[in-house]
């Protein structure tokens, strides 16, 4: 049971971070379907930092540096979307999809190049970071507390405050609802949209890092992040683009994802004799069902996905 809670919380942390990233981007008016790719490169940035940090580094320093690396890499990568969508009016779905393909491909090429350089026979796309990863975990009794759980919670609170209580957040939302109106009162729509996309890059990158450090101590980058970026988008829609609802939605989805890791620990579930594949499918099936119920009365930002053109009325 403790294990279930632990996994639920860590997967929910991933989903919360990434979904909030998507939330910021969409509130600014840019659909970020490339979160999956951003997660992968963010994870890569973090994993490589963990790999190359000297063994004796202090735990706090490891945490800070690794997080910084993921966030920065995620932000730089998200600029690819930002520039294309904001400056060049590119189709956001198309560019987002390109990021999703670009992220894993770049990660595999890079990791393999590194591995092959280390030893010619090593053609795997795996990065091992067993030692450094321990810095993130704190054992409280039998419960493995992960600092990311706290970070995710703090980001959630901060997002709520930023979006609803600060000038920046309200302006950001204005750009996603009615950019022309926002512009007419002197808000720089382009800047705001860049801000939204960059925040989504930072949170997406961080989410990727959390995902690959949840439970395992090495990551095979050929696998990407198994559709988690899209699950996060489903969480965002289920949460109706509101931070608090997103937090609750993430817990629900995290629970179903965690079940596939730990269902063998529950006699009742084992007795059902379902193949493990069913549990693997569960989060995706649940999200489809959930989307059916919540998409009808969607509260998506009105101007999302539409490139802003100053000259248009």
């Amino acid at each position, binding site marked *: 049971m403790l294990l279930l809670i632990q996994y639920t919380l860590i997967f929910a942390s991933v989903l919360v971070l990434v979904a909030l990233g998507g939330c910021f981007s969409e509130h600014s008016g840019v659909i970020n379907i490339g979160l999956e790719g951003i997660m992968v490169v963010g994870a890569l940035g973090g994993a490589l930092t963990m790999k190359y940090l000297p063994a004796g580094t202090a735990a706090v320093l490891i945490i800070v540096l690794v997080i910084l690396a993921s966030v920065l890499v995620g932000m730089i990568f998200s600029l690819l979307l930002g520039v294309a969508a904001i400056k060049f009016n590119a*189709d956001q779905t*198309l560019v987002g999809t390109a990021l999703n*393909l670009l992220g894993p491909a770049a990660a595999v*090429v890079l990791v393999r190049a590194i591995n092959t350089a280390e030893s010619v026979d090593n*053609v795997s796309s795996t990065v091992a970071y067993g030692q450094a990863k321990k810095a993130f975990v704190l054992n409280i009794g039998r419960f493995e507390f992960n600092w990311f759980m706290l970070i995710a919670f703090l980001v959630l609170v901060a997002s709520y405050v930023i979006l609803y209580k600060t000038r920046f957040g309200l302006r950001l939302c204005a750009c996603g609802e009615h950019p022309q109106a926002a512009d007419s009162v002197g808000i720089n729509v382009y800047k705001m949209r860049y801000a939204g996309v960059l925040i989504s890059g930072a949170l997406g990158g961080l989410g990727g890092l959390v995902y690959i450090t949840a439970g395992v101590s090495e990551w095979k980058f050929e696998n990407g992040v198994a*559709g988690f970026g899209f699950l996060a988008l489903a969480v965002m829609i289920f949460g109706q683009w509101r931070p608090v609802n997103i937090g609750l939605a993430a817990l629900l989805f995290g629970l179903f994802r965690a079940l596939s890791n730990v269902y063998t620990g529950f006699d009742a579930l084992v007795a059902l004799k379902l193949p493990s594949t069913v549990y693997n499918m569960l989060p995706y099936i649940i999200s489809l069902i959930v989307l059916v119920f919540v998409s009808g009365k969607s509260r998506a930002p009105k101007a999302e996905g539409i490139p802003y053109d100053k000259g248009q009325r």
Partner: protein
Amino acid sequence: MQMSKESRKKESLLRNSGFQTILGSLLCIIIGLLIGYVVLLIINPGGAGKAIVAILKNFLYYPSAAAATKYLGTTLVKASALLMCSLSVLFAWKVGLFNIGAAGQYVVGVGACLYFGIGLGMPWYVCMLAAVLTAAFVGGISGALKAYFNVNEVISCIMLNWIGLYLVNMLLSLVKEQSTPYTKPLKSVNKSALLPNIGLDQVFSKNEFVTIGLPLAVVMAVIVWVVLEKTKFGFELKATGMNKNAAKYCGMREKRNIILTMVIAGGLAGFGAAIFYLTGIEQWMVQQTSVPAMGFNGIAAAFLGGSNPLGAILSSYFIQHITSGGTYVDKTMYCTQISDLISAFIIYLCGFVLFFKVWLNRFLDKREEKNN
């Protein structure tokens, strides 16, 4: 005023939208390859030139003409499946839907045709029909969710990709070999499920995998073009894509059109699965943890081809050419995924084609003004 006749003719060619699309696609390819080359240089400057040449040469890597023809055949077979996936993507795109689920529809198509072939011992046309119908059904789910519940088709497609992958792994585990995670080879279990060669294998130095699938894929591309451009049905679908409400106002059944589009898109992807796996060229690995790249490369091919079915024939071949070419790079330095990286860059660059066109037209306007 003093413009010579020839330069005016050149001008009008540059103004031509189709020509601009081709120009844009070529630019995407060139820049994509350049970026790929730079990446190779960064990884290992020593072999970068050789590697990019290997990617571009693909089957020409073999010195003997017979071997090269044979591997040209293999590339073409893969390209034909890719063409179907890209048709699936572009058909939906013309109707304003982004079918990122082509990958998943392709996967269920694989599951259906292999199960019918190996498990039930059906002949090839039944297997093919099963693949098309199952994939069409999965596409239809996304369409129905979009039409009736306003579920974003991109997200529902992704979810269905994963659900499809797991289901197919489960289904095909029933017909896998005892000692390996691969499905039983069609050739030894049920020869009647293999597509007929109609002599095409002889053309490609006895490449048994070249079948009627190849011409069928090209025919499909032409049919899709005709349906989209020359029929009332295609016009209605495109009108629905442009403005759902206007289409409804004009008496079109917009919900039906959306569902039908996704059904057709799914069917096309399923057809691609059938013409690939029913040649016996590959066995399915039932422990696969990611959806095959075919569907995603289909997106690249669709946009690189200027979302035109006939352009897709060329672009699918090109994407497959460099993907296959990636397997010939020097593996002590680079990995085969470098091709995936290049095609991903090409898709990214395709996002700029529209801007490129606007910029080009503005540039031409300015020049005209100056000349006058």
